[in-house]
């Protein structure tokens, strides 16, 4: 597989996405909402507890909440691909540009990887922008109120550095497969939404289940996601049929 070929496809998709207002607004709106809404909710919750807790208890509680709320950014990383990745092949179909693209000397793997990369970059970028807003707001608030920084924590680093990208890759791949197999953009997004729902629940588990320490659960989850990512890439390669796309898409 030649990564340069994949990058050419990805770069073109990134350019096309930039010109698509629907995609652009989704990429701006979702991280903004998450980046602002989550810290506001967090701060409101903690301020409600401030009257009944000591300063030390409050910091402990705040750290726990910050960790739990960090997991919510997985929602952005998993939800955005249902908008962007589902568009990748169907977008080509809508513009009737898929046939000339398939006629170029690119392999299925290069094309799929390029399409995945083109969807992954804006999704992860937008998620991190939201995460950065969260990070800044939480730390500014904690410095003002506690004189200390709540972030980063080990769990936050694991979620942000490993779980979020792996979950995003999984959602991108799932949505690319759907996009290459259905005819309608809305249908692709709806199916994508349904399929990523269980993924979302699983990735939020560490913040809800208390059987194991959150950091350990995040590591276990990362391992599972990495295996699923690799498996799904090979599945998408195996199920990607140029011929079927050309002859069955009307």
């Amino acid at each position, binding site marked *: 597989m030649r990564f340069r*070929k994949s990058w*050419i*496809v990805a770069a*073109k998709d990134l*350019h*096309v996405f930039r*010109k*698509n207002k629907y995609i652009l607004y989704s990429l701006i709106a979702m991280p903004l909402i998450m980046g602002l809404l989550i810290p506001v909710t967090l701060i409101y919750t903690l301020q409600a507890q401030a009257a009944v807790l000591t300063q030390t208890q409050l910091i402990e509680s705040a750290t726990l909440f910050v960790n739990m709320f960090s997991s919510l950014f997985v929602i952005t990383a998993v939800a955005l691909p249902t908008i962007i990745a589902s568009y990748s092949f169907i977008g080509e179909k809508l*513009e*009737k*540009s*898929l*046939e*000339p*693209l*398939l*006629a*170029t*000397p*690119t*392999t299925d793997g290069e094309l799929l990887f390029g399409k995945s990369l083109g969807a992954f970059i804006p999704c992860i970028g937008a998620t991190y922008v939201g995460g950065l807003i969260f990070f800044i707001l939480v730390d500014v608030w904690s410095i003002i109120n506690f004189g200390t920084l709540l972030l980063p924590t080990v769990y936050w680093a694991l979620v942000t550095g490993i779980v979020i990208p792996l979950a995003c890759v999984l959602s991108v791949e799932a949505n690319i497969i759907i996009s290459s197999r259905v005819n309608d953009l809305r249908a692709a997004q709806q199916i994508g939404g349904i399929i990523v729902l269980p993924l979302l629940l699983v990735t939020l588990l560490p913040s809800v289940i208390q059987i194991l320490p959150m950091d350990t659960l995040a590591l276990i989850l990362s391992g599972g996601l990495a295996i699923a990512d690799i498996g799904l890439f090979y599945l998408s390669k195996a199920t990607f049929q*140029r*011929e079927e796309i*050309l*002859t069955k898409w009307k």
Partner: protein
Amino acid sequence: MIELENLTRKFGDLTAVDNVTLKVNKGEVFGFLGPNGAGKTTTVRMLCCLISKTSGKARVGDFEVDHEEDRLKIRKMVGYLSGDVGLYENLSAYKNLDFYGKLYEVPSTEREENIKRLLQLVGLWERKDDVAAGLSKGMKQKLAIARALIHEPQVLFLDEPTANLDPLAAKTVRDFILELKKEKRTIFMNTHNLAEAERVCDRIAVLKTKLVGVGSPEDLERNISRRKTVIHLESIADSVLAAVKKLSTVKNVSTNENKLILDMDNPEKDNPQLIRTIVTSGGNIQYVTASRSTLEDVYLKLVEEA
């Protein structure tokens, strides 16, 4: 350059292309004619390695379409204009070509030169920065042809290059194809447009799932559809018409104003007797001509008989 041997493609019970055997020479402009659903697009898609064949053989250059290792090589050496122009509407004319140039691995400097040359050739250089969405249908079609040429392919497959274009835009595209013909590229062109095929193509094949005829437009007109004898009379009397119809050598008679149009097996041999008959039955002959059948006649005859 292109060889098909008993090439067949089935979709379930439906045979889209049935045992097609033909050869296209290097530098030739080859027209593929046929009604809708005749298998033209399916054939081109098989030759561009977009879909697989059911049986038979197909070769482009030195490569077999069903050999996995040859498929990328074929895709690299051919240019393909699909039935739909399929441009990226939000990208500029330049960026559309640049993207494909990169995918076809055209080196940067050569790519820039090719884009400039092709956009100038199709008259779009001044509009290179306009998004494709803002171009007219004819301009888009020309841009799509330029896209198919960005890597200087040895073989060009054009699927209905002038379909849905107004006459002026169609002429521009046709003229462009004639320019390409001068460059001695092998061009395989699907078309419904018989006049276009006659004007542009060196040879023509008529397909109706099976191959029903192949040859130069002149050969097809000469061999497949017979010439007719046209006799211009002062007026056509009933006695003349009756006498002509009695002749066993006349297969069919039709009239058009004062003209008798006669279909005969061997006009060179039987015309003298025909003329004598007309004269003796009272017809005043002004002049006698032979009508050449058109490619349309040939096409309709081949398709109807298939």
